[in-house]
């Protein structure tokens, strides 16, 4: 990750910005919606090792004088799935289907009781961090 950030520094103009957009390291909430209201009932247990590694990489290049923090904004991001199969495909893409079978079964039960057209909703807060390019230690 540090190598990628160094490459970014190389291709950025002297006053350029690096934007790091990713989920906040908190558990996603999952539920249903059928009337515009999101009823989030379950949490997805997740590992945040990758987030900690990314934070460490950013801290590394800031310490090296390549970038300085220039802003940070946190906001909510929702994903709406029309069908349970879509949600299952999303879990499979993320290699989470084995650990989240319980969640699929709970959603399946809830969907049978819900209104026709109910969607599955996943809430994941995101954080957008802005870093400003500095000349770096080589330029003094």
């Amino acid at each position: 990750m540090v190598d990628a950030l160094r490459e970014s520094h190389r291709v950025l103009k002297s006053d350029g910005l690096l934007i790091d957009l990713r989920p906040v390291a908190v558990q996603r909430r999952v539920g249903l919606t059928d009337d515009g209201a999101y009823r989030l009932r379950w949490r997805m247990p997740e590992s945040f090792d990758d987030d900690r590694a990314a934070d460490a990489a950013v801290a590394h290049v800031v310490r090296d004088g390549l970038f300085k923090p220039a802003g940070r904004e946190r906001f909510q991001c929702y994903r709406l799935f029309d069908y349970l199969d879509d949600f299952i495909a999303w879990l499979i893409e993320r290699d989470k289907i084995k650990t989240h079978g319980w969640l699929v079964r709970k959603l399946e039960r809830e969907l049978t009781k819900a209104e026709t057209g109910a969607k599955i909703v996943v809430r994941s807060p995101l954080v957008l961090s802005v870093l400003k390019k500095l000349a770096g230690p080589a330029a003094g």
Partner: protein
Amino acid sequence: MPLIVDPEQNEVKALADVMLWRRKSVLEIGCGSGRLSRRIAALGAIVHAIDPDPKLVRKARSGLPKRFANRINFRAGKAEKLHHRNEKFDVVIFAWSL
């Protein structure tokens, strides 16, 4: 996959708060199927988008609306070895990829 990501457009609002994007040269790293690339281009930027997965790059290209054809360029590539000259971009974005 019938999926809507960020129906409230909070992501776009947060990006729009950062700067005026019109005519800015942007490198997006980890573009996937190009969802965010299209949103950034819609803000007025010229987007060079890369992803290490050639399948996703092909998907992004095939799903690109004509109105973005001159505004987004998708390529397979890795963040650790960029094939771009020094000091080319105004902005580099890591989108879920750091």
